[in-house]
């Protein structure tokens, strides 16, 4: 590793990368806050108009078939939403009579292990980057009802109007039989 900083040398690229990573991390922490503080309208704005919000299912398969243990986009899924459906989910909670979330659950999103599988240092307008992360989501509702949902996210983030937007989200949960009675919490 070199010590001296040069505005156009490898250190500049590294600094740009760190800067982008910070921006991405901050994006996820803000998203978690919006969700956990029930600020759903600005949360919706984090998605592009053409977003695919997709939560495949998991299968128990032999070792040789392990690559297929996440259901494909042409299979059934837990969730397979476009932007309009995502918006309907928010509107349903906001009716105040969506009994599954009325009264609201208490939720904390912990987002960790944020990583760019193919590191980039700059993300110009219109460009996209794949970001992998883990989620640990704690949900508690009414008295003692508790769910812990853990898994991976694989997002495609796109820069639009200077801001990061989610153009695609794949949510891979580490359960085959879902142990929560419903999925009313956004992951």
């Amino acid at each position, binding site marked *: 590793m070199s010590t001296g900083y040069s505005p156009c040398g490898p250190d500049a690229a590294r600094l740009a990368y760190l800067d982008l990573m910070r921006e991405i991390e901050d994006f996820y922490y803000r998203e978690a806050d919006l969700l956990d503080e029930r600020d759903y309208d600005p949360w919706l704005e984090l998605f592009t108009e053409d977003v695919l919000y997709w939560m495949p299912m998991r*299968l*128990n398969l032999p070792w040789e078939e392990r690559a297929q243990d996440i259901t494909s986009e042409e299979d059934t899924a837990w969730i*397979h939403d476009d932007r309009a459906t995502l918006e309907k989910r928010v509107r349903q909670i906001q009716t105040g*009579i969506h*009994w599954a979330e009325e009264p609201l659950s208490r939720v904390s999103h912990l987002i960790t292990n944020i990583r760019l599988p193919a590191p980039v240092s700059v993300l110009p307008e219109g460009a996209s980057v794949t970001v992998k992360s883990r989620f640990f989501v704690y949900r508690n509702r*009414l008295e003692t*009802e508790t769910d812990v949902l853990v898994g991976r996210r694989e997002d495609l983030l796109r820069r639009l109007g200077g801001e990061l937007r989610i153009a695609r989200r794949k949510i891979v949960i580490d359960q085959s039989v*879902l142990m*929560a009675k419903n999925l009313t919490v956004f992951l």
Partner: protein
Amino acid sequence: MKSLGGSAHALVDMQLGEISRELFVNQDLYREEQERIFARAWLYVGHESQVKAPGDFFTSKMGEESVILTRDRAGKLHVFLNTCRHRGMKVCRYDQGNTKNFICPYHGWSFATDGKLVGVNDYQAAYQPPFDRDQWGLVEVAQLKVFRGTVWATWDPQAPSFEDYMGEAMFALDKGFAPWDGGDGQTELLGVPQKWIIPSNWKFVAENFSCDVLHTVSHRSVDMVGIGPSVGEGRRDPMGRQLVTSYPGGHGCLYGIWPTETPRQDYAGSAETAAYFQDCWQRRIKRMGKQAGIIPVVGTMFPNMSFHAQQPRTILVAHPRGPLETELWRVYFVDKDAPLAVKRYLRSYYLRYSGPAGMTEQDDMENWNYASAASLGTVSRRYPYHYKAGLRAGGASDDVPGRVTENPVTTEQNPRGLYKRWADYMDAPDWTALCAAQEQP
């Protein structure tokens, strides 16, 4: 099996329309149900499209127990209990696949896809005299039936044939599981099942889908938002007149009756889907005449197979796991010949409607959860549930077989019919008595 001497019928008052909360919380009744209902009734196991080729298998459940649906090398379908005859190990722990043999991971016994025990380690050296391997194959169901792609089985050799078990409810299955054009084409599953666990008794699920016409307030939020396949409020396209229909075998169904001279506007949210539907609808009218307008909307085939057959199209099985725990398995089906774009559109509609993330089903599960929990207490158990809607309504109809109550008269006749049959099973020592009990009101 000993007779409970009519004690189950004492919990289910058909005259008053009152049903004891014990049915939903009592551990002893729950254990009895496993023996008296799930080991005797015809149960839904899977769909033919899950086991197309020889050697294909799909791991399913019958009641609490794991079973394997498999197509053997000769192409014949079987359903086996998923347990090794040696020391009980689950012989198949994969959800689906294709195999030559099921090889037990414990001591290595291997079973062919027709259930035969074909391999035992140290067979020559260890077993002197040799034991008869033909006697130690996988445990197979007593009867199996495929109907319009759906696969059913029962453990009871005395159980009547599938057709007799369903009785006039065959009409609902025949119409419900036909392709949209009403012909003999195939339906297929959109993919693997959704499986999830809910804290509720299985009968809440069964009675709800048998046709609980009263639970509209459960779904008001989703109706306001509007998730149907066309635009605007609601969850579905119009279905026409609504007939709540029950059958003596404990089965219940809601039919939509559409006047065939009135044009339909279904699936207006997708041009391709609307066009495919129109094409099927025209062929359906040509094929079936006035009968084309009769389409089952929702129903439960006793005990625990529920379905939506119009919008969405899906099968839900409520597998019991305890008095207060149920494992739901939901699959979605479409016409095999539908264009890919139509299948995709239907998938997104079905998935936003049903399943744990379904905007409709989410609210059902909240209700079943806390209805079960609030019925557990010593005092709350003293107070029966109320099933009095339409107590004196209902009769024969020209449109469909069975006992029919037409909307706008609301009725809880279908849940009542389900619990009457539940009591028959719990009290009757054998199928002779069960068949006789079916004739009693």
